[in-house]
């Protein structure tokens, strides 16, 4: 959409949305949210960015093909559950690494990795759909 007003503001909006999406992703374990919703928000951001500034600039911005990102998400999502193999536990048994950093409890865990996988899958797949459609629309 060739309008200066939208084009100018869209990147900021998109950045804001991506930020928000990561926030939603990270706190999903404790509050409403999580990888899927976060991913949808991020994909929406990509869509807005794409509509405003063209698909090419989005593709440049995210470096990898969205489907590769999606594939990577699935990859780490599936592998996150394999860690438990080395502890003689069943597939997808969660592994937690909880420590304090400056008095803030940091919890790294396989469910988190898994949720990040979900996030990437959604961003990639839905983003890919949105971009592909947008590209077609722009034909």
């Amino acid at each position, binding site marked *: 959409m060739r309008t200066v007003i939208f084009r100018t503001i869209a990147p900021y909006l998109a950045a804001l949305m991506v930020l928000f999406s990561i926030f939603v992703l990270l706190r999903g374990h404790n509050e409403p949210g999580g990888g899927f919703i976060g991913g949808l928000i991020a994909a929406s951001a990509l869509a807005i960015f794409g509509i405003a500034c063209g698909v090419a600039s989005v593709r440049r911005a995210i470096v990898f093909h969205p489907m590769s990102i999606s594939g990577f998400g699935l990859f780490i999502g599936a592998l996150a559950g394999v860690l*438990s193999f080395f502890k003689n*536990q069943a597939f997808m048994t969660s592994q937690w690494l909880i420590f304090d950093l400056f008095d803030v409890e940091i919890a790294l865990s396989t469910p988190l990795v898994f949720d990040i996988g979900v996030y990437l899958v959604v961003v990639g797949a839905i983003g890919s759909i949105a971009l592909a459609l947008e590209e077609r629309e722009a034909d």
Partner: protein
Amino acid sequence: MAGSSVSVDYAEAMITTPIAAGDWLIVAPSLITMVGGALCLMLRKNTDLQPKLGVFLLGLLVLASLGLLIRVLDQGVITMVMGNWLPPFGIAVTADPLGATLTFIGSVVAFCAGVFAMQTVSSSGRRYGFYPFLLLLMTGVCGSFLTADVFNLYVWFEVLLISSYGLLILGNERIQLDGAVKYGVLNLVGTNLFLIATGLLYGIFGTLNMADIAVKVDALDNPASGALATVAALYFLAFAMKAAAFPVNFWLPASYHTPNIVVSAVFAGLLTKVGVYALIRIFVLILPASLEYMADVIGIVAIATLITGALGALAQSEIRRLLGYLVIAGIGSMLAGLAIASSGTQATLAISGAIFYAVHSIIVMTALYMAAGIMGMMGSSFNLRELGGLYHKSVAFAGVFLVLAFAVSGLPPFSGFWPKVMLVDAAFQGGRFWLGAAILVSGFLTTLAMGRVWIYAFWRGGPEGTADGQSVDVTGAAEGQLSSGALWLPLGVLTALVIYFGLQPEWMIELATQGASSVVDPFGYIRSVLGEQG
């Protein structure tokens, strides 16, 4: 309980005994295909590497599923609960002889398809995901065969369904799009019915674990009535759609002939059988009372499927469509097994017949579609009017086709014969003579249909109108591909299996019997999943 820490007895929530590394074989099929599919997807632009990686991964899958099968035969039913949560709270994945057998056979077929596709799938097909689709299809298939959780079964159904969509439209030809619309919408309705039934089942029992449900159903006074009866009917309808049983099989003849032939081959081999598997799993293991209640309906459906499927095959002039109907007719046999299994002592025989038939059908239908693909390459057509002279073209191939044709018709000494005998035997023992007769009549019609294909495409000297006694030299458009071993190796392997299971059925009968016993008498299954509480 406030505070930063709380003391928890982990044993109340989790399995605390260490899991043997070998038990990981249960998830290995899903894991290999999923991680591999993801990997292929990440490398999607490297269209040269894709086939090699894909075939390697599928080979790995075959090994893993073989390992699993051996372990199951060795140790009995084995279970792994995802996340180590106690069953029925965590999702249990359980390999019993039934699931493990089908997983193994399915993997073999997928491997063969992967090899075949090296030759038939174009680089654009690879780029847009043939191997990821195939691998993830196998995730869905293996997941369905091995899961012990109804909702999880739904999820894997969806995985294999969406993969099949992808494979179906790969190429974007008009006919594919048409086929995909019907396939897509009708199958979606099917899975939604499945989901509805699962939702209702959860509403009734508050649990999703199959073994847990089986225990609860068993405890009911009247397990074939009330809302549970509706649930059973919905499950039957949903899986009958998946299995392409009459009269909800429209989607199959409308779509199976449209994609790349290797895709049809995989579909024909695997997809409908997952539906049959689910019917067996749900009805024999979980809802035996409903099975008894619905046996007549299932029997009628089976007969109609057997006959209409075979008649459909006779009505075709396009070999791929003809084969589609044969897939349907085969489903009728398996459903007959289910109907026969509803009561009496022959349940194990009937179900083992159905399992053996499923195995046979997986192999033979895949092989037949591959053969059809080669016929198309040789004769530049899939139409019986335009084909001819293939016998002269390659006697070896003609032989392979003939073996497959006899096998699919259930003639000895090939793989289709034994399950047919077992099913007819069980039908007669159970007093369901019509079912036995229908199986035989369907086999007869199939023989006729395949005989027609043979005389037109192979024995006739050329296309329709070729002078009597004359032979026309046919040169297919895709002739160049025919020298590729990627076409012949998988076809050869599958045909060899067809012959092997025909000549040496003992192993398969034994396997099928064990598989049948594990659902007919679910004690071992339930104990494996729920432990001592079961």
